[in-house]
């Protein structure tokens, strides 16, 4: 049994896969997480046939103010999405939680601002952005799949 004990007390065992847990790696600026497909540089593993695709969401020139603001909301929201999955498996990570708090606050402000200037993207921002409204504005603005304001 001595041999078996030695072999099975290690992290790796027969007939079972293992994967290292991700350690915190300094994240990308939240504005660039979306174009990288993740907020974590250590998980950004490129495909050779997709390295040279021009990044339309990175370009600021020639974009309307509305497009820029929507891009910002998409960017901060995605950074939160990716961070959420990380926190699901790393609930005790203080760095992750601090960034989550900061970005969530930022997102709420951007959503309210967008609802005030253009149209609501979430039901709650209809109220936080335009508290005085006399009109139910949920149907305002383009439908997401039409490609408006990109």
């Amino acid at each position: 049994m001595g041999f078996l004990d030695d072999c099975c007390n290690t992290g790796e065992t027969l007939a079972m896969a293992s994967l290292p847990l991700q350690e915190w790696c300094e994240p990308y600026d939240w504005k660039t997480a979306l174009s990288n497909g993740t907020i974590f540089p250590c998980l950004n593993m490129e495909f050779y046939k997709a390295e040279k695709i021009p990044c339309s969401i990175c370009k600021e020139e020639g974009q309307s103010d509305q497009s820029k603001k929507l891009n910002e909301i998409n960017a901060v929201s995605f950074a939160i999405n990716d961070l959420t999955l990380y926190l699901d498996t790393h609930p005790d990570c203080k760095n992750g939680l601090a960034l989550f708090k900061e970005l969530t606050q930022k997102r709420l402000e951007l959503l309210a601002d967008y609802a005030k200037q253009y149209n609501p993207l979430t039901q709650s921002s209809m109220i936080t952005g335009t508290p005085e409204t006399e009109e139910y504005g949920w149907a305002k603005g383009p439908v997401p799949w039409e490609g408006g304001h990109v």
Partner: protein
Amino acid sequence: MWCYEKRLQFPVKINKTCPKTAQLIISQYGGPDGELSASMRYLAQRYSMPIKKVGGLMTDIGTEEINHMEIICAMVYQLTKNLTPEEAKTAGFDAYYIDHTAGVWPQAAAGVPFTALEFQSKGDAMADLYEDLAAEQKARTVYENLLRVIEDPDVREPLKFLRAREIVHFQRFGEALEMTKQKLDSKNFYYFNPEFDKKMFHQEEQ
């Protein structure tokens, strides 16, 4: 429950009509390794996961897969919304056009309709997590196959994003596997099924 946001997770703006491209990427809507299949897989498996945090992760990844389904559908829609009958005929999109006109319907690239047979909910945490890890790899392969043959940068950009997500999800499912393993006896992970043999699992936990 779910709340809708009136935006895509990754923006899609395609200017050129191309039914041929639509016919290829529609596989990531209703195909064997598509986003619909992915979301239904994780959202079905999560109920009986023995580790609460793993069920939570499946909810969040399953939710993100619904976002991805919407991105794929938006691409199919934009690639075909100005379709002419002539274009449908010459691009090999004619059979789809006859059945669905320019509507969006879940099928694989080869025309096989979406079916729940594309995924499993096995009621065994190990078996399900291994399926999930494999599913992320298979979806990555599909995105790479698409990126090799599609040239329009408006289509390539969202495909590149979706491919990147498969790798992140794979890592998270790997971490979920480790979390599940930690609650079991490393001398024999297969002595019982923690998802079904609950009494034995709870004894183990103490």
